[in-house]
């Protein structure tokens, strides 16, 4: 990147529209990922998030093929996938092999769609590894809207969802509908996953959705602190990732994954089991 003498590096960085857009998009996504990820780790369902992003790949490539927006294709298919997983309930949860199969089939189907689509390579790389530097203003508004829907849904269901996660039998006895909670939560996870893909891509969703949340779980034993820390780590990871990418000219996703891994490793080292 060219360094202009009139400004400091940090200021220069934000003189590029694409960097401002990336920072805005990254912040929206990181906030949602931090909150949703914390609950995902609490419920022991992290693999579901990983699987949903792969399901979304089919949606995104399918949308490309028919000339629709890949973001909306991904949102539609991940939400359907999340609701489906929730409806299958306990029968699907923990079935690693079944989820893994769906995951592979989804990537395979996505590959087939890409095969029929002409602008193969660049689209595939963008979907698989993220393309936050290519985010335009319109996409930012879409991300903001979807992020707000995710967080508002959580505000409404947070209390019974937490109860159902901590003490399922007791929650059921008190009248909480466990199946409904599972479906609603996985629908929110699906939305969050589709948002994360816009920043780090299908294959690296784990780094934003799970790494900060898992580190926060180790460092904080109180719920409010845990969620705040998870959001703080996700946002820091995204901003630092963008800055390092700007400084080194390496892909943003490389730095975001490296920082996520480092944060989790440090959390593990500082709080041993």
């Amino acid at each position, binding site marked *: 990147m060219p360094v202009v003498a009139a400004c400091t590096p940090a200021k220069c960085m934000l003189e590029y529209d694409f960097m401002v857009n990336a920072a805005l998009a990254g912040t929206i996504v990181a906030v949602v990922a931090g909150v949703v990820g914390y609950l995902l780790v609490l419920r022991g369902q992290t693999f579901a998030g990983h699987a949903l992003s792969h399901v979304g790949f089919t949606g995104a490539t399918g949308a490309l093929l028919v000339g629709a927006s890949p973001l909306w294709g991904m949102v539609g298919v991940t939400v359907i996938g999340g609701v489906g997983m929730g409806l299958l309930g306990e029968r699907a949860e923990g079935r690693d092999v079944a989820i893994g199969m769906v995951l592979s089939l989804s990537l395979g189907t996505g590959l087939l769609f890409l095969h029929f689509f002409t602008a193969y390579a660049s689209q595939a790389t963008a979907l698989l590894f993220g393309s936050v530097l290519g985010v335009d203003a319109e996409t930012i508004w879409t991300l903001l809207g979807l992020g707000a829907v995710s967080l508002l849904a959580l505000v409404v269901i947070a209390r019974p969802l937490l109860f159902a996660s901590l003490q399922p039998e007791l929650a059921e006895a008190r009248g909480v509908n466990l199946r409904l909670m599972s479906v609603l939560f996985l629908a929110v996870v699906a939305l969050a996953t589709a948002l994360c893909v816009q920043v780090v891509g299908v294959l690296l969703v784990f780094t934003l959705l799970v790494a900060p949340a898992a580190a926060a779980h180790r460092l904080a034993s109180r*719920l409010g602190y845990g969620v705040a820390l998870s959001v703080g780590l996700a946002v820091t990871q995204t901003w630092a990732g963008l800055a390092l990418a700007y400084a080194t000219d390496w892909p943003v996703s490389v730095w975001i994954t490296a920082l996520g891994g480092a944060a989790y490793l440090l959390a593990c080292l500082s709080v041993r089991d």
Partner: protein
Amino acid sequence: MSAIALNRLTLTLGVRTILRDVSLAIPSGEFVGVLGPNGAGKTTLFRAMLGLVKPSAGSLTILGHPAARGTAGIGYMPQTRSVSGVMRLSGTAFLAGALHGERWGLPLLDAAGQADISRVLDLVGAGSLAQRPMRALSGGERQLLLLAQALLGRPRLLLLDEPLLNLDPRHQHGIVALVRRLAGELGITVLFSAHELNPLLGAIDRVLYLGGGQAAIGTVDEVITGPVLSRLYGADIEVVRAGGRIFVMSGGQEVERAHACSGGVHAGEVHA
């Protein structure tokens, strides 16, 4: 008034009949030990009392009302499955999550909720444990927190499902004595299920023994006898009393201990 009344109750779980045409009543304030071989239906009976399993026939009345989900006044301590994410939370956070968790919205804790959490932690003497992550606690300490959780909201009936599981004898004794004391002080009816009778001896008022779709209730001396247990197990049972303890034997094998150690392999033999 009876806290619990079963009137010609039949409970089924899938194709299995757990209870067949059973009638009995448990008066308020009684401390009842619930025993029986693995698969006899102790947990199913508790779940029916909570309204989670519907009677196939007959009726089940809890605190004066037909058993239904969301009935106020019932504290429940289920058998625990520990999810690793949950175990990183502190005891206080765990208790707060169970408080009025059936309401919509954010799980914010008001002053009354805070006070109720302090009250139940004091009752079980776990105030000093509650700030630590649950995975840093021993099994016995975790059981105290679960017992505290069951006491939230001042219940009149406590259903405790196997609180002694995986505890050493010293902690088993501690839990039984604590529940006995709290039940007396707070005037709560308690159903306490267990694999083994001996840790409960001297603490319980009566014993409810389940087996073979049937149930027997009465004092230990009335129920823990060869003829009654032979009927419930559908096999020849011999009851041996030695050194203040009671051993339930089948064909020279100690029945209860066999369940506890081998996960019910011998229970199957007894059933057959």
